[in-house]
């Protein structure tokens, strides 16, 4: 029998495994609930006790993308065979589709604002972090602390001044305004995280590139960026998750053209009563982009989080 102080025993591995799986199940439960509710009928969604097994339907998904009205008596008599499947589905409930809902629009607002602000936070954050890491910045430590201090209160605490500023600048309910706001909030996180990653990259690589005939900017682009890619990717995930999920400021500052999905989804009201399956369907679709983004960058995320933490 070999014995190692660092390698866990099979029993320890089992216990760790059970704990991890248990924790994962608990955190997954609300998600499963939402996904399941999205495929329930209105009646099933509010049934008590909750139905674990139910007959799936895509009603919720049809409802979330459409606006509907009650069928008139004449329309109810019309033959339904030639109608598209979603219209048939809606007519069975005594409704008819009269147009597209605003969900798609709000969803794309979220995409534009979420990815836009992430892009700017990463570009500006990388530039600032590189400067902090490599140049003699006067009052460097104080500046870094000041940048971090912007995160020491919840962003909503400054909602009213921001609201007033935005009103005066005409930024209320604009894409530019929301991108600006989320970039500003994410920037401190981006500077701090990326600064840590760039600090880990020995300066000798850049010196070698300078000697090899490259300018400082080219050395940054060709040598530092590829090595910092991991850290930048994981920072991007954090920034996107924040901007994508942000609710409070979005409620306050957007109402129409630039409204993102989070404040919109709870306002989905069906024809007669809150349409929970539609809300759940909207939430499920809303989860997809950030999930795909995270899965694509997952390998970087795991490496990134541990990599930046180790100090020499």
């Amino acid at each position, binding site marked *: 029998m070999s014995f190692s102080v660092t390698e866990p025993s099979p029993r320890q591995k089992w216990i760790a495994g059970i704990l991890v799986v248990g924790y994962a199940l608990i955190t997954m439960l609300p998600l499963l609930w939402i996904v399941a509710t999205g495929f329930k009928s209105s009646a099933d969604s509010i049934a008590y006790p909750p139905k674990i097994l139910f007959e799936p339907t895509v009603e919720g998904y049809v409802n979330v993308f459409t606006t509907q009205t009650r069928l008139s008596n004449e329309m109810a008599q019309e033959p339904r065979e030639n109608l598209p499947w979603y219209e048939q589905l809606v007519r069975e409930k005594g409704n008819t589709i009269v147009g597209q809902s605003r969900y798609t629009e709000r969803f794309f607002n979220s995409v534009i604002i979420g990815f836009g602000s992430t892009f700017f936070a990463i570009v500006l954050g990388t530039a600032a972090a590189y400067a902090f890491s490599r140049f003699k910045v006067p009052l460097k430590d104080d500046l870094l602390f000041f940048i971090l201090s912007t995160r020491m209160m919840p962003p909503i605490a400054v909602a009213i001044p921001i609201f007033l500023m935005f009103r005066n600048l005409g930024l209320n309910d604009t894409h530019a305004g929301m991108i600006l706001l989320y970039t500003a909030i994410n920037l401190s996180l981006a500077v701090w995280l990326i600064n840590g990653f760039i600090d880990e990259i*020995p300066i*000798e*690589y850049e*010196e*070698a*590139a*300078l*000697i*090899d*005939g*490259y*300018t*400082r900017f*080219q050395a940054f682009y060709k*040598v530092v960026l*590829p*090595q910092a890619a991991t850290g930048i990717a994981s920072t991007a995930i954090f920034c996107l998750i924040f901007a994508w999920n942000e609710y409070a400021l979005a409620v306050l500052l957007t109402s129409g053209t630039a409204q993102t999905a989070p404040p919109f989804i709870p306002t989905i009201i069906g024809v007669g009563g809150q349409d929970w399956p539609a809300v759940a369907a909207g939430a499920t679709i809303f989860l997809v982009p950030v999930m795909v983004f995270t899965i694509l960058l997952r390998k970087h995320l795991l490496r990134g989080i541990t990599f930046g933490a180790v100090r020499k």
Partner: protein
Amino acid sequence: MAEVVLKNVTKRFGADVALENVSMTVPDGSFVVLLGPTGAGKTTTLRMISGLDRPDAGDVLIGGQSMAGLTPAQRNVAMVFQQYSLYPHLTVRENLEFPLKSPLLKTPAEEIARKIREVAEVLQISHKLDNKATALSGGEMQRVSIGRALVRTPTIYLMDEPLSSLDAKLRADLRIELKRIQSKSGATLLYVTHDQIEAMTMATHVGVLDRGKLVQFGSPREIYENPVSIYAASRLGQPRINIVPASLFGGAPAKADKIGLRPEQIVQGEGEDSLVTRVEHLGDQTRLHLNYKSHELITVTDAHTQLNEGDTVKIRPEKPFYFDAQGDRVA
């Protein structure tokens, strides 16, 4: 290739003086070796010339041109770093191509391929060209890092202990190879090492640095045969020069405090008795550890000597070096 001149170069890092008023001329086509222990200012000298650091005072001239304010790229120097500094995200081939593809050189593709083939051959890394730079052994990394300099034709090659982590055989091969490349191409080379065999075999000139000061500059023979101080004398010679009080032997000049004796400056079989304390057979030579009036001396004797521990042997100094109390040469 060009002549490189340092004029009264001073560099401080905080309170530490890394270089103090160093003036030195590296002639065009020469192979200059800088010797000195850690902290003597060898690497700092290379960094001054390369432009990675700027002197606090003084000037660096390459080919007669002042380099003040010029970036490393504009100076067109090649440097081999002590820590290799291979780009970890690139393959060996991409590492070697990197300087050739710079905006400075923009080498055509066929020429890049040809140069890399040549250099990889010389450095015995042809079979590793498509490996990731991080998947190499220390010695291989060091060779790639030398290769990254050799693919270029810069004004000067700067090398910071380029052979330090190679095994003995490879080091001997590359020593000869580097010297061959340098004398064939007429390249100017400034080379930092701790290894005195490298200094003796490759250098046309040796600069001895001591705590930021250039104490002696000359041919290796000159420094070996005519050192200016105990410090300079101790840099070259294997076994090291023996330093003992001058009064131990007669005939010392008035100001002399210490006498320096290289093995060949100790004549055996004449003079006064000394006790053999140890005999080291190294194959091609035999080292004798002697006790002379309770001072330790090390010298070299015939490889097939019959002397044993406990024997006595007569010795006397022959044209020794005399140094004053500060360690400076007086005779």
